[in-house]
């Protein structure tokens, strides 16, 4: 394959009534990702093309796009993996489009914030003015660590069939994060979170389609996280869930390690006095 055809969604809210498709044929090179192609188009063919990206290594979660009918990270999708010489790129479904490939993720972050994605303590002084680290055993960390890998890219939300019909549904990302923090032994705020997730548009609308886990680029498995949240909420309502105990704080070591001496400069500083 020497050339690759990009069919890119274009949308300018000032000019277009609805998104349209524009074609670009660009040179292909081995190892190229979908994002590399978009950058090529922007730099060499049409600098008005809008898309979001930052880290180019599947870390920041900003390059989520609808690539050949699946939500994927553009920087994490090698063109060869698609096994096609025509690539259709659109903005993520289930989110309003702002311009071209940029969608508005406000609802994702608002829903994420609503489930209180942070450690809640009965006495917040230790959180606000920490005197040491909360103790946590390795096994306790492993109970939720996979859900902590979420990069908030929104791919799971774009793939969710329930969100496609009910825009008020909290969705896989916030619900999984509600579980991630409630399962954390350092946290005592599960009850507060369960109130947020136990609504008509909350966790019970998840029908376990599993599309979220299929597309998650970080192996978070949000469908599993939501099932665990349902189980935790069931046990909580039947009073079978253990009462959370505030974690103990590991006091900092009394003796501080000696500071490593800073090595001398190997290049002499220029004499600025003269």
């Amino acid at each position, binding site marked *: 394959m020497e050339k690759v055809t990009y069919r890119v969604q274009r949308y300018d809210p000032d000019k277009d009534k609805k998104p349209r498709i524009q074609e670009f044929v660009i040179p292909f090179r081995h190892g190229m990702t979908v994002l590399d192609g978009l950058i090529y188009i922007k730099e060499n063919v049409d600098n008005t093309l809008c898309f979001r990206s930052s880290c180019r290594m599947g870390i920041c979660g900003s390059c989520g796009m609808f690539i050949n009918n699946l939500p994927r990270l553009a920087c994490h999708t090698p063109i060869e993996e698609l096994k096609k010489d025509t690539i259709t790129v659109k903005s993520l479904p289930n989110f309003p489009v702002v311009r071209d490939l940029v969608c508005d993720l406000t609802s994702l972050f608002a829903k994420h914030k609503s489930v209180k994605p942070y450690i809640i303590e009965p006495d917040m002084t230790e959180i606000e003015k920490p005197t040491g680290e909360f103790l946590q055993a390795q096994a306790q960390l492993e109970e939720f660590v996979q859900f902590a890998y979420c990069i908030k890219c929104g791919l799971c939300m774009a793939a969710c069939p*329930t969100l496609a*019909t*009910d*825009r*008020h*549904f909290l969705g896989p990302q916030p619900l999984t994060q509600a579980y991630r923090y409630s399962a954390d032994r350092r946290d005592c705020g599960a009850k507060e979170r*369960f109130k947020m997730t*136990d*609504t*008509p*548009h*909350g966790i*019970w*609308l998840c029908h376990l389609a599993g599309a979220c886990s299929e597309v998650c680029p970080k192996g978070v498995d949000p469908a599993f996280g939501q099932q665990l949240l*349902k189980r935790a*909420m*069931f046990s*909580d*309502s*039947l009073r079978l869930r253990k009462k959370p105990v505030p974690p103990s704080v590991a006091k900092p070591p009394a003796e501080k390690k000696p500071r490593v001496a800073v090595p001398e400069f190997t290049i002499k500083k220029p004499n600025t006095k003269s």
Partner: protein
Amino acid sequence: MREVHLKILQYVSAVGIFFFVGIHLLVSHFSSGSPTSWASVVSRATSSGWFAIYIFILVFGFYHTLNGLRTIILEFSLSQRAIKVLDWTLVLGGLAVFGYAIYIPVQGF
């Protein structure tokens, strides 16, 4: 009532339906005699055991169906107000139809 309680009842009613409809099918199809004959229908309709089983089937069946219907309708991005209207329609409509449905076993008994 919280959503989690509605969901727990949904599962309980599913088990209830499975259990009581199972009894109904097993006894009526594997006991001797025709289950649809006049005599066996009358004997079931006048037995207090069968009366209780029919009431349980109706209660569980109604709850399971109406709550299932509510879950489907909820997926249409309903507002809080619309959800309230939906809930009351299902409760009142359900009670009315349940009252009518229960009339037959009560009459027979």
